[in-house]
């Protein structure tokens, strides 16, 4: 029988009312008395040596309060989550390595003066040759972008299971393909913004949209030469993040300017600055060699992943690790050999972007599976079912333990059942219609990977003397709904109204370290930590309550804002119980720590089916329908969960169809939202989302992660649908009309 919950499983949006009223304060909405406005001076070209920088003219402009260069930095002037190799400001005599490097900063009385002063800074530099693609960067004799590295290889990885040679020997057919995936821009509507100021104790306070307050606090402190406890970092409600706000950008700059001027400083990136500076989804080149028997059993999978890290290390080593560990996905393949490299170039820095390497490797694999199905003359759905992982089998990564029965077959059936209901009668004669599928086994809470080991999660809960509850967590609300989910979990545990629970998020002065709000992890990790903390607090309340009511502890339970006695022998409202505790000196705050099992990480299953119409006269493709079925374990908030799948699906549709942050010789060809095209409402296909509930043993109420997962299947399902419609695979998406037209008509792309 299904467990009955108090409020888990209901739709609730704690931050909804303030958002529809426009009352939510994002970082850029903060105005402080005496506040300065700051602007950055960015690198003039993609690669060069800074010879001199003359700020005297800029400093003399009335209204300019400070012009700051690397000389003004007292710390290491370097930051980075894995290797601290990225400069806060590039110094004289140093090289700038990409267009997003910052050379100087201006703080002025208003925006206009700051912009004018930036133009008055004189920079003398020597332009250097650049590395703009894998071939250039990996060529013998290529110059090294980082002198401490032997080659331009940022990191490498390898996974071998079974014996790849015998795997290919057992196969009847071998297919080799190369898939290229484009650089994706997050394009959150809120560009990066930060406000910094001194508090009464002379500490710098930072309010900014960012995804991990403790990481930012620590890394900025050492880069600027401050003890971490002299900075307070508050993550404001983010206007979208998707991984793009997981890394330091203007936050160190705002703090530096407050240190230099003593005044509050606000810095907000223009859209063009945002596009140049924050890390992108890695462009990749993925080579797959796959072997199968005539009846569709895949025996061998050899894959190489190259990802373009851009100019600095950033998160590339971890993104590569995750790309490789999700490469084989939800299938059982006995012999695998996976390897890859993250490669330094002078292109834009790449980093976290919804899926963290999984969309690239999963999409490539799913495209090749459809091409294999075609060669084998087997239905693509059947091929996937033949090879779907079964419990007890070894996944293509040693990081996953199949602790619940895999659900891929059922998810595929559910998506296809919906798609088959679509009418097929109104396709014009010059159009071709096709349906495609794609599957994945998304990993979540990957920051618990043994190789990372960083991301345990603390959450605290406090009951005030009137019985009202406050949750303290360092998760960040970036639209996904974590503030609502945490309120629901506390409300579930104490049986109170979720609207009455306050949730304080992401403030290094008051909330415990929670690790990053990334990797589809916060419902799982903060949710678990909050449950543990709540259990401890409830235990103490029950112990006190049993003395107060003079009944055995086992008879007490919480319901509807009260502590009740089983069999109706008495009750006490939480307001009275908490007040009695207050006067008796009983601690009513509890903090708990959750860190998922070290040996394995969370995983789930997802299947997406797409229906497309290809106009053979123009090459334009219309996505008619997108159906996704996701094994969510338990949906704590079904509307928010569906919103993640739909929104993630549309981001992935954009990646498949139009989005390519193109660079040519380091310059950005699509520098604004007029050239870099994300989906509009006109691109919206009919959407259906199926949430399959299959409780996860270690999840709170059985919940799994969901945030990133649709980005691992939607693009592949769409591209496979184009393949099914036309017989041509777009192996270097996005599938622009020009590319599709050329493929359909057989015209080579270069002509």
């Amino acid at each position, binding site marked *: 029988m299904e467990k009955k919950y108090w409020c888990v499983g209901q*739709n609730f*949006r704690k*931050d*909804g*009312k*303030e*958002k*529809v*009223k*426009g*009352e*939510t*304060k*994002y970082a*850029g*909405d903060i*105005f402080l008395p005496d506040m300065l406005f700051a602007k950055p001076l960015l690198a003039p070209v993609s690669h060069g040596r800074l010879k001199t920088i003359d700020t005297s003219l800029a400093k003399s402009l009335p209204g300019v309060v400070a012009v700051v260069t690397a000389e003004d930095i007292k710390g290491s002037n370097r930051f980075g989550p894995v290797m601290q190799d990225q400069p806060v400001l590039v110094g004289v005599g140093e090289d700038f390595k990409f267009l997003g490097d910052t050379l100087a900063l201006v703080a002025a009385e208003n925006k206009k003066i700051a912009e004018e002063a930036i133009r008055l800074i004189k920079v003398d530099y020597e332009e250097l040759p650049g590395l703009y693609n894998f071939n250039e960067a990996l060529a013998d004799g290529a110059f090294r972008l980082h002198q401490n590295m032997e080659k331009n290889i940022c990191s490498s990885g390898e996974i071998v299971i079974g014996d790849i040679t015998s795997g290919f020997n057992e196969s009847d057919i071998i297919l080799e393909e190369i898939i290229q995936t484009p650089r994706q821009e*997050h*394009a*959150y*509507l*809120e*560009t990066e913004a930060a406000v910094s100021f001194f508090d009464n104790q002379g500490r710098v306070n930072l309010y900014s949209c960012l995804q991990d307050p403790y990481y930012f606090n620590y890394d900025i402190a050492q880069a600027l030469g401050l003890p971490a406890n002299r900075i307070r970092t508050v993550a404001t*409600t*983010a*206007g*979208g*993040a*998707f991984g793009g706000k997981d890394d330091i950008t203007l936050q160190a700059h705002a703090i530096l300017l407050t240190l230099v001027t003593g005044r509050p400083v606000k810095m*907000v990136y*223009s*859209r063009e600055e945002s596009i140049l500076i924050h890390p992108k989804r890695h462009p990749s080149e993925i080579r797959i060699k796959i072997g199968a028997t005539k009846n569709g059993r895949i025996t061998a999978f050899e894959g190489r992943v190259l990802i373009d890290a851009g100019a600095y290390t950033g998160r590339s080593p971890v993104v590569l690790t995750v790309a490789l560990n999700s490469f084989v996905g939800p299938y059982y393949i006995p012999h695998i050999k996976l390897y890859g490299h993250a490669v330094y170039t002078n292109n834009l820095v790449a980093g976290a972007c919804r899926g963290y390497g999984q969309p690239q490797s999963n999409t490539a694999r799913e495209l090749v599976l459809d091409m294999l199905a075609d060669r084998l003359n087997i239905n693509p759905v059947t091929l996937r079912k033949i090879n779907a992982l079964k419990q007890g089998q070894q996944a293509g990564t040693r990081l996953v333990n199949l602790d619940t029965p895999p659900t891929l077959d059922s998810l595929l059936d559910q998506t296809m059942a919906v798609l088959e209901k679509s009418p097929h009668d109104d396709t014009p004669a010059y159009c071709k219609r096709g349906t495609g599928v794609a599957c994945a086994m998304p990993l979540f809470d990957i920051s618990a990977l043994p190789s990372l080991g960083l991301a345990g999660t603390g959450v605290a809960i406090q009951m005030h003397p009137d019985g009202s509850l406050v949750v303290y967590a360092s998760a960040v609300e*970036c*639209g*996904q*709904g974590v503030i609502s989910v945490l309120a629901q979990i506390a409300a579930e545990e104490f049986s109170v109204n979720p609207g009455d629970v306050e949730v304080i998020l992401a403030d290094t002065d008051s909330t415990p370290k929670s690790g990053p709000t990334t990797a589809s992890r916060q419902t799982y990790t903060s949710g678990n930590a909050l449950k543990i903390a709540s259990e401890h607090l409830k235990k103490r309340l029950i112990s006190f309550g049993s003395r107060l009511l003079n009944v055995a502890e086992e008879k007490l339970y919480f319901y509807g804002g009260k502590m009740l006695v089983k069999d109706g022998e008495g009750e006490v409202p939480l307001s009275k119980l908490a007040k009695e505790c207050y006067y008796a000196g009983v601690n009513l705050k509890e903090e708990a720590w959750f860190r998922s099992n070290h040996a394995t990480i969370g995983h789930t299953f997802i299947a997406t089916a797409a229906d497309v119409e290809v106009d053979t006269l123009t090459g334009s493709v219309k996505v008619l329908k997108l159906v996704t079925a996701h094994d969510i374990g338990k949906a704590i908030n079904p*509307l*928010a969960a*569906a*919103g993640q799948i*739909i*929104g*993630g*699906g*549309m*981001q992935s549709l954009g990646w498949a169809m139009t989005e390519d942050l193109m660079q040519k010789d380091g310059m950005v060809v699509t520098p*604004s*939202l*007029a050239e870099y095209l*994300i*989906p*509009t*409402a*006109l691109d*919206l296909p009919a*959407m259906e989302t199926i949430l399959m509930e299959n409780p996860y043993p270690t999840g709170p109420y059985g919940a799994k992660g969901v945030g990133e997962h649709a980005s691992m299947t939607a693009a592949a399902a769409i591209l496979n649908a184009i393949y099914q419609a036309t017989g041509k695979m777009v192996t270097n998406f996005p599938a622009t009309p020009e590319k599709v037209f050329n493929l359909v008509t057989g015209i080579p792309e270069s002509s």
Partner: protein
Amino acid sequence: MEKLELTVNGYHYQVQVEPDETLLDMLREQLKLTGTKSGCNKGECGACTVIMNGMAVNSCLVPALQARHAEILTIEGLSKGEELHPIQEAFLASGAVQCGYCTPGMILSVKALLDNNPKPTVAEIQEGISGNLCRCTGYEQIVQAVQSLAGKKV
């Protein structure tokens, strides 16, 4: 600096503006009506949408001086105190709000749409909000919210 008189959310204002100051900057920086958002400052994203004399406009493209004697509605003027406007209620009920950054502009575009066309088709809704980018929701739940309002008084 030039003197400018206009009405915002039913209140009369007199402000001094620079000739190149946009309506967006004036609303946010002088009147501190920060519910109107800046996403691109070039008319590409729609986050700064307000209603000016009954029409939805990108306030980042409107010189403040062009709003002389105009009637402006921003998100702050839509609800009556604690009582939400039906469009705001519909957005919450349909799950049309995630990060919330596009929400004020999106809601005002929907208002302008429904004021002119109380029963829009799905295609008309998609067209009506196509100037407002949203990166979180994928638009589906926004379209559902607007559909739920079709024919109702807003």
